[in-house]
Structure formats: structure tokens, C-alpha cells
């Protein structure tokens, strides 16, 4: 289980990395398309520079710091940088408070944009995404075979992406 702001990486083929109930947060799956190595980060906010000093318990709480952190961890596990791809889930707008509310309510959209920007800077391609809209989502990363499944609130689980391996 990958909770708010946390991340997990794994090279245990039988393992599943799961986040239940992503709303405005982003579930960032990074997958080695050639090996059974994968990671999942639960990103809460776009930019660590907006944070009050000391409000950064986990680098993966923010999109800009989550991407480098995950890339380091995956490299340490033996993933090959050139084989890494990304899948994005979440970034919904669950509610809006109208004119009196805060402008921070498009956090979901800003989370996705910041995550894509950080991936772009690291030259990691985004292969698939289930993002935006107004519904919460659950994401499961199956380390074996590099498969990502998604389930929307009130929906059924479906495959979003799978590494097409020949071996």
C-alpha cells in the first residue's frame, strides 16, 4: 500500500504496488519495460518550492522531487534508465468551491502538469494515463510483466498499460 506522499519500489515479481482512492493526487508508476522492476509514488502536490520549510517529510509528496527520487531508487535496484517508462493515474478534480473558494482547487490538474514536466526533463516517456475528470481512482502496479490496472469509483478494474515483452 502506497499512502499519501509515500512511494515504493520493487523487483519482487509477485508483488503489487497499490494506492486506493487517488483523488487530486497522482499515482506515478515507473516501470522498467525489460525487467520486473517497478515503482509507485503517491504525489500530493506539484511543487516542493511552495512548501513551508520542514513540510517535506517525503520527497515523493511533491511532483518535482518525486521523479528524481524514484529514478535513483529504481537505478539502485538495477533498472536501466533507457528502459524506464511512466504511467500516470489520478489528478481528478473531486470538488470545487465556486467563486468564494480557493484557487488551489485545480490541484489535480497542476499535479499532472508538474509530473509530466519532471518526467519530460528526465526524458522518461509517458505511455498511458487515466487522469483528470471528477472521479477517484485506485491503481495497481503488477511488478511481474509491468502491468498497470485502474479502477474508478463505482467502476470495474481494467488494464491501463502492460509492457510488451518478447521474452
Amino acid at each position, binding site marked *: 500500500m502506497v499512502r499519501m506522499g509515500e512511494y515504493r519500489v520493487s523487483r519482487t515479481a509477485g508483488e503489487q504496488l497499490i494506492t486506493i*482512492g487517488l483523488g487530486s493526487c497522482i499515482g506515478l508508476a515507473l516501470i522498467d519495460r525489460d525487467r520486473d522492476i517497478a515503482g509507485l509514488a503517491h504525489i500530493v*502536490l506539484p511543487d516542493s518550492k511552495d512548501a*513551508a*520549510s520542514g*513540510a517535506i517529510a517525503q520527497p515523493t509528496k511533491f511532483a518535482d522531487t518525486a521523479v528524481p527520487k524514484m529514478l535513483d531508487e529504481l537505478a539502485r535496484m538495477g533498472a536501466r534508465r533507457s528502459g524506464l517508462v511512466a504511467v500516470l493515474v489520478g489528478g481528478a478534480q473531486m*470538488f470545487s*468551491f465556486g467563486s*468564494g473558494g480557493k484557487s488551489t482547487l485545480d490541484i489535480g490538474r497542476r499535479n499532472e502538469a508538474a509530473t509530466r514536466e519532471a518526467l519530460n526533463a528526465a526524458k522518461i516517456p509517458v505511455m498511458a494515463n487515466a487522469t483528470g475528470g471528477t472521479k*477517484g481512482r485506485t491503481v495497481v502496479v503488477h511488478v511481474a510483466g509491468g502491468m498497470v490496472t485502474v479502477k474508478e469509483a463505482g467502476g470495474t478494474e481494467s488494464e491501463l498499460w502492460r509492457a510488451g515483452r518478447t521474452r
Partner: protein
Amino acid sequence: MTTQYTEMQLDALREVANIGSGNAATALAAMLGRPVDLSCPYVYAKPLAEAVESVGPAELEVTAILIQVIGDLETMVVLMFNENDSRVLCEALGVEAGTEVGVSALCEIGNILGASYLSALAMMTGIDLEPAPPIAVEDMLGAILSSVLALGASQTDTALLLDSRLLVEGSDANFSFMFLVNPGAKGIGSLLERLGLGS
């Protein structure tokens, strides 16, 4: 920042939740024409990562009523009804759960409960607390709560939740009534000060 609170401060916040939700329970009882019980409120000051699981299963489908609070304290009142709670409450008000009318009845319950909770708090502490109009969201508990917590997450790694449970007598409706405070934002310090427990 992982904000720390002393036992005495948490006790004081528990008392605040007790008085606020006591007032709300009385208002709900009057609305439904049925007694409403209140269980001892929980106060959590926990890392963000642990916040959702302390409230309930992340995958649980709920109808949440969100009430933003405008005034001296940056906070949010959150009510969460599972399918059964929604059915019991809507039936008591003579509307069908799961319909548009049902959802707006839950909004109205949120409105009245939120206002009575906040007015008790305002009276107790002298802090100005105005509820904004309620918003209904139907989704997974985890998706709703994490998105609410994300609003304050740039200032803190701590979630401060005052969670009371209201039970409608003669039914199994038993729902969560939360007062969610962003410890990084203005106001919580002065709330504790008014209670004589400033840091």
C-alpha cells in the same frame, strides 16, 4: 513540519469536538424527530500518510458533505455517510437516497449540523467561524479525504482531525462528523490560546 501537540492540548480539542458535535446532535435530533447519540470524539494529530486509514477504509464508497469554514480559522467540516447512513437519513426525511433530492437532503443535514457545530465553537472561543454553502461529493473515502488534506499539505505533514460519530437511535446509521484543521494555517494557535493552552 510534523506539528506536535501536548496531551493537554489534544484533550482540549477533544472537548471542543464534544461540545460542537453535541450541539450538532441536538440539531439533528430536532430535524429527524428521533434521539441522536454522540460517541466520544477522537482527536488525531497524525502524519498525512496515516490520516485516511484512521478515519475508515479508503475504498469505502461514501457521500461526503464538505463545508469550508471562512473566518479566523482555516478549516473544513466534513460529514461522511455510507450507503446505509444515507438510506436511514433520507428515509427519515421522506426522500429517496441516491437521487438528486436525496443528496440535497444530505447537504441540508450537513448545513444544519455544520452551522450548529461552528456556532458552539464560536461561542466557546470567541473566534469568528462562518460556514460556506455545503458541497456534496460521492466517491471513495480515500479519494475525498486525501484531496481535502492536499489543500493544506504544502504547509504541514500533520493532519489534525477532530472526528465525532453520531448515531441515530433505533437505526444502524452511525456516521462520521469531522472537523479538519490545517495545523500549518493561521488560526489553530489562536484557538488553543483562547482555550488557555497556547504554546
